[in-house]
């Protein structure tokens, strides 16, 4: 590990090097291009925020849906009302990382090239980790041009534990927090005597498996772990053989962290083979999945997430949903945390009257904020992990005012846990704070 002194001397050398080059010219260059091409042609430079997620390829629908939400939130909440910081618009710059760590690195350089200092990213913990590394390296080597990682959805605990960083803020509950609530819920269900855990063979799948087993052992030692299975990501053609094992094991419930096509195939196999047990999971709604599961999945799939989908508590948020739906008839507000993140960052900017990620970062630490859904949010300063109430919802068509994929089906919240009960202690985060 690097000592603080080394760090400083490196920074110093770095500064000298930078002074010798001419980044200013470049910035003017970018600016002038912007002035020519920007559709706003404003007197003031817009605040540019990048949205980096897969916009092409297999995961494109999730990425594009997120992009639309961020774009809409920026326009609806700020740009249409005269902007922020006394008249500056928010400009969302889409960057397609194709769900690849390598491509993310390239897109990150593109962002830096364009003078962007805030990057929203959510899909894929591998990408988030790679981006975290890249941003830390960049910020260390280029003081004054720091970039903040706005993680709205990557749930690998490591990002706010061992690898926590001043420049990374997470607006989603991490996997362990979610599992904590999910296992509470399972433990409280007397009918469940054994569970089967199945997941994709990678870090998140393993986290889900290890943590659920540990937590269930603490909470309900009598629950039998009927199976603990890993399958390769995206390689399984047919989940029926796995379902056979689940049937044979006599499990009463399935826990899985699968996403994308692996989630759909697994759920479909379980349903098609007539196995009538609940599935507890994270990513089994929206972006085509709800429509695909349809009637078959009713009352069988339960998800853990923040911000309820149905019923929605405040009129303000309902209004936001309706406006979004009017603008994007084929999409849903799948990730309200994108809006939360944007609103909190803007609030921090307004407080500090600065767009420098360092100032904004300090202002975000320990910020308490009320979302348009009336939910209270706390950004913990020690590890930059957000806390807010968590909910478990069921896939159904009853009581669903805001459905998903225009299918009539959606999520209905059955169980909620207030903010205080979601808090987990800071375990392994020893954050190195930059000095100014």
């Amino acid at each position, binding site marked *: 590990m690097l000592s603080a002194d080394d760090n400083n001397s490196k920074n110093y050398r770095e500064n000298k090097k930078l002074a010798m080059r001419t980044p200013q010219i470049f910035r003017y*260059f970018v600016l002038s291009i912007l002035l020519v091409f920007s559709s706003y042609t404003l007197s003031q430079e817009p605040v540019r925020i990048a949205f980096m997620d897969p916009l092409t390829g297999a995961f494109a629908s999730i990425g594009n849906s997120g992009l639309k939400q961020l774009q809409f939130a920026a326009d609806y909440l700020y740009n249409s009302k005269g902007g922020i910081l006394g008249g500056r618009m928010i400009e969302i710059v889409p960057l397609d990382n194709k769900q690849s760590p390598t491509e993310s690195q390239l897109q990150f350089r593109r962002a830096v090239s364009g003078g962007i200092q805030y990057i929203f990213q959510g899909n894929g913990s591998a990408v988030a980790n790679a981006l975290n590394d890249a941003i830390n390296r960049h910020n260390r*080597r280029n003081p004054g041009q720091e970039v903040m990682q706005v993680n709205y959805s990557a749930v690998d605990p490591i990002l706010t534990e061992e690898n926590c960083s001043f420049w990374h803020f997470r607006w989603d509950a991490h996997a362990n927090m979610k599992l904590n609530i999910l296992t509470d819920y399972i433990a409280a269900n007397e009918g469940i005597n054994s569970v089967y855990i199945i997941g994709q063979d990678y870090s998140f799948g393993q986290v889900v498996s290890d943590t659920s087993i540990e937590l269930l052992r603490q909470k309900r030692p009598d629950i039998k772990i009927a199976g603990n299975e890993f399958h390769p*990501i995206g390689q399984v053609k047919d989940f029926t053989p796995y379902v056979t094992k689940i049937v044979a094991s006599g499990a009463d419930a399935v826990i899985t962290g699968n996403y994308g096509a692996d989630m759909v195939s697994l759920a479909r196999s379980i349903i098609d083979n007539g196995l009538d047990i609940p599935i507890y999971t994270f990513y089994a709604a929206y972006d085509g999945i709800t429509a695909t599961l349809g009637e078959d999945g009713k009352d069988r799939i339960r998800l853990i997430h923040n911000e309820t989908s149905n019923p929605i508590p405040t009129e303000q948020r309902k209004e936001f949903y309706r406006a979004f739906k009017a603008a994007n008839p084929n999409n849903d507000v799948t990730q309200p945390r994108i809006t939360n993140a944007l609103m909190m960052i803007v609030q921090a900017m307004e407080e500090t009257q600065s767009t420098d990620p360092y100032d904004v970062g300090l202002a975000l630490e320990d910020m308490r904020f009320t979302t348009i859904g009336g939910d209270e949010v706390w950004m913990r300063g020690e590890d930059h992990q957000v806390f807010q109430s968590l909910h478990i919802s069921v896939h159904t068509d009853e009581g669903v005012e805001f459905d998903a994929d225009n299918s009539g089906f959606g999520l209905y919240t059955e169980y909620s846990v207030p903010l205080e009960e979601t808090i987990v202690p800071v375990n392994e985060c020893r954050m190195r704070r930059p000095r100014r």
Partner: protein
Amino acid sequence: MTVIKKSTVWICYLLGLLALPQFFDSVLAISIFNQMAIAIVFALSYNMLLGQGGMLSFGHAVYFGLGGFLAVHALVMIEFEILSFSIIWIPLVGGFIGLLAALFIGTFSTHKAGTVFAMISLGIGELIAASSLIFVSFFGGEAGISGDRTFGPPFFGIEWFQNLEIYYLAVAWVFIATLFMYFFTLTPAGKMANAVRDNPERAEFIGYSARRVRYITFCAAGFFAGIAGGLFALNYEFITEENLNAATSGRVLLSAYIGGLGYFIGPIIGAVVLTLMNSLLSNYSDLWMLYLGIMFLLTVLFLPRGFAGFIMMHQMVWAHGKIKSLVLPYLITGVPSFIFVIASVGLIELSHTDEAEFYYLGLNFDSTTAIDFILISIAVLAALFCIRKSLPQLRAAWESANEISDDDEKEAQS
């Protein structure tokens, strides 16, 4: 005389590479150049295998990736002071690992060329890509492993903070690697690789074991792929399993093929074109992969020897000064072709967009009504019609240009 002429090409190559950052110096541009440098070495190494040695591989990324993984591990070891050497040697670490892997895998995969080799390479590629997700302690799972290049002893005061510094280092390696790969084609082993590609049976009757010749080429290709992997490690400072999976193998096949197999310069062209498409085109359109696929298929269909082959086709005409006679016919076909491409892209984009208003080439289209669709469709059809009409003319011009060349040659000979 010829020595000077030949070295001029090389000096231009080196100067061109060195001068690039003088013209484009944004962070993004440097990052694209770095990518290009890596792609060039990788594509050249693939060409050694397929173009020179006739071995169609669907798993060449294995050597690239393994080289890269070991290179990142070496960076980590330097960081933790287990090793201590300047990071300029990291590509060599990658190359060495690529070579080792090829030495081992080559013992059973080079037995035959053709489909058998292709299938073994596919199988090995899938196996290693799958194992890379299973053996997490070495490969780091889907998140990969990462290092930091700034911890080694400084090299003449350079500590490799900036990507520009890495670019110059990459240029040095690209130049050396290109030079050595070129020299390889001029050695007995390199020439015999061509001979075995053309006719493995006959090669055996002039004293060479086809298998051994393939093995040597295979190992050399593995070595240079590893060097490319090492450069990757230096540039990105991390590597993941996606760098040794089938998609990466497919991409290098694409770039070598589009550039032109068999021509030494082909893969360089291919690598540059593909990198630019990947990093620039993808910004303008979600559909760039579709365009890439179409371009690839058209290349296979109409330019079987790639871009380099297309250029080389004109060598004879050029040498006999007949190129002028082709300019007009090329223009007559070229202009409608250009319009055809532009209009087709417009049509595809227009039918893909969700927005009601659609900007393309500074024009504003309305995707909700049929009129704009019809207008563009008419443009596409008209251009297509013009191309069809002008093609016989082009063909005739081409043939006459080449025919006269033949006559000239006969005159020259008699």
